[in-house]
């Protein structure tokens, strides 16, 4: 497994931290963090991560809007996006899949398991 570059966009700093720790600890991947959709898009444009973990519920610009924004830019449209959501319902998962995201990981999750889940979703 090559060293992957992961961008986590979540307004919740504790989540940023546990995801960063967990991924680093479990897989040794590099994790970038962003606290808002706006910041996340900028980071994505500059850092070009291998995958973006995107929180759905965020103030101002939520995950869906952020995803759409990412899709509208040529620099970021190719980056796979995995949604992190507390909305665990089947119907909602289907709805998110319909958007064109690569996958959905529901909260609560164990950040140590994230690299494995991401690899499975993206077939790494």
């Amino acid at each position, binding site marked *: 497994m090559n060293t992957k570059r992961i961008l986590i966009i979540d307004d919740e700093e504790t*989540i940023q*931290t*546990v*995801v960063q720790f*967990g991924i680093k*600890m479990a897989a040794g991947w590099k994790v970038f963090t962003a606290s808002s959709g706006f910041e996340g898009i900028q980071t994505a444009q500059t850092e070009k991560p291998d995958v973006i973990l995107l929180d759905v519920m965020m103030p101002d610009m939520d995950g869906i809007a952020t995803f759409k924004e990412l899709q509208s830019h040529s620099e970021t449209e190719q980056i796979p996006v995995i949604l992190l959501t*507390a909305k665990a*319902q*089947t119907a909602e998962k289907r709805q998110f899949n319909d958007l064109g995201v690569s996958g959905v990981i529901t909260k*609560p999750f164990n950040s140590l398991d994230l690299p494995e889940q991401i690899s499975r979703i993206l077939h790494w």
Partner: protein
Amino acid sequence: MKKFQHQRRTYNKHLIQNLFKNAHDAIALIDDHLYFVDMNIAACDLLGLSRKQLKGQALANFITAEFTRQPNSLSFPPAQSLMGELLVSSSAQNQREMEYTLIPNVLPCCHLLLLRDISHRRESMQAELRQQQQRVELFSEVTLKIRQSLQLKEILHTTVTEVQRILQADRVLIYQVLPDGTGKTISEAVLPDYPTLMDLEFPEEVFPQEYQHLYAHGRVRATVDVHDPAAGLADCLVEFVDQFQIKAKLIVPIVQNLNAQSQNHLWGLLIAHQCDSVRHWVDFELELMQQLADQISIALSQAQLLERLEEVVADRTAELQEEINVRMQAEAALRQSEEQLRLITNALPVLIAYVDDQQQYRFNNQAYQDWLGQSPKEIYGSHLHQVWGEDCYQRMQVYVKTALSGQAVNYENDILLKDGSWRAVDVTYIPDVDDQNTVKGFFALSSDISDCKAIERMKDEFISVISHELRTPLTSLHSALKILATGRLGSLSTEGQQMLGIADDSTERLVRLVNNVLDLQRIESGKVIMECQACNAANLMIQAAEAMQAMAQQHEITLVKQPQDISVWADADYILQALTNLLSNAIKFSSPGGTVWLTVEQEQGSQNLPRELVFRVRDEGQGIPADQLERIFEKFQQVDSSDSRKKGGTGLGLTICRKIIEQHNGRIWAESTPGCGSTFAFTLPTLECVNISWRGIYEYEADFNY
């Protein structure tokens, strides 16, 4: 012989002279030129001149011109007499009607003229004629008067008054014979000089039964003089009539022939009294009385008919009045019940209405006024479209049609109130179907569910809060604990490790609990709609078993599955959730080394319904007491609450399973023999069932197209 002849001649001469002299009729001898030759005393009296004066006078001076043309003595055949009538004028210009006989040539050139005065006879004849005519006139006048009235009393009064007038009798009365044999005067016309008999009741002996029979058979009694023994009146009766000054009387019966079969019945008597003198009753008077008695009889029948008719009318009127009363009472009752209905419906803060099959309001309560500002009176007869406006009507139209097709329907709508606020309403239409299955309209009930909606929104918001606000820190907590547990951030003491383990377990339990609460909430609120499609039962079972394999291994449980390729109509994700839930329970409550079976069977549905699939999860655990078999499906119910903590359950798993299965129109239950394990089973419809119910729907719709 000669002597005898002479004697005879003398006798004849003497006889003739006597006859001539004393004859009552006028006798005259006239010559060929109709001049008087001689005449008798009667002729002198008739013509008003002496014999001397008359002799030689021309007959023409005394008789009408017509006669002069009549007899011509010369032309008379010998001994043929001529008869006829003529008018004779005396010198006193007194004209008389005479019957004459002219006997020609009783002596040579001498004719005998006999004149008999018939003017008196004529007069009496004419008087008779006049009387008869008068009688007819009177009679028709009286009968007309009688006929003009239908009131018996008036008829009788008219009769006695008229008879009294015509007969010039002193008293005329109608005596009614009563059934007990007594009788009384019921109508009377009497001159003021004489006592009245009106309303006087007579005992039976005055008019005994045998007399009544005679009268009933048409007896008529005309008594000229009550005191005349020839009249045959008993002394006591004479005495009796004397007190009323009756001198002569005329009695005719009033007989009724009630019907063709019955005998004549003597109803009463029509009686005329003469009080000032005896009286010879003439035929005309008798006839008049009899005819009037007949008229009275007819009038009686008519009056009785009328009375009966009046009775019938009165009865019918009473009946009608009764009917009217009943109807009025019914109407009053109806009004009252309607008022009561209004009172009740007006007091309720919901819209209540009845709409007919033309979509027009036939009833609506006060709430319409309060909510929409339209009074029930204004709305009555209005079309739904008028009351609700275009947009709202568009939203309700489909449901209105459903209701008018005979199906009850319930839906939610948003309506604009008169104060400009929008309200969410829950609307129910219940069709009004008559005996012939014709939909006459529907009952409409709309209640304000804005508050419920607000609460629902709050609940949604709360769920959203739990989802996000609670899960986010949980995620951090969970991950942080897991990271700590790796030991790569530093080693913990044994106690530290133990505490970390407890924190980790508790966090996991909390995560499950939150997940379950959310799941249940979602399903219960009806927000979750099962997206059913044809699924393979075998696939579902394999997936569920795979998902639980790790847990089974951990608990040292053998998981045995017997999948079958049967199509089932279900939402695969939710059925998987139910299956894994049941498997997880079975594993948790089995002892290490035990076995858990997952099977499926196709079984006949209950009540001859189509076949359905039955999934079963069987374990060899401790089992469930019979009284707990149903309770375990309730929220937070576990057989042994200490188990819950030990086994890490939330107490919501089975409740969620039941909700999921019920949403699939299936059933879920538990069977157990304590000590020998438990079996959890649930049914799901097969494709066959679904097809049948769909076909049913199509057929139903097809029916409506006709």
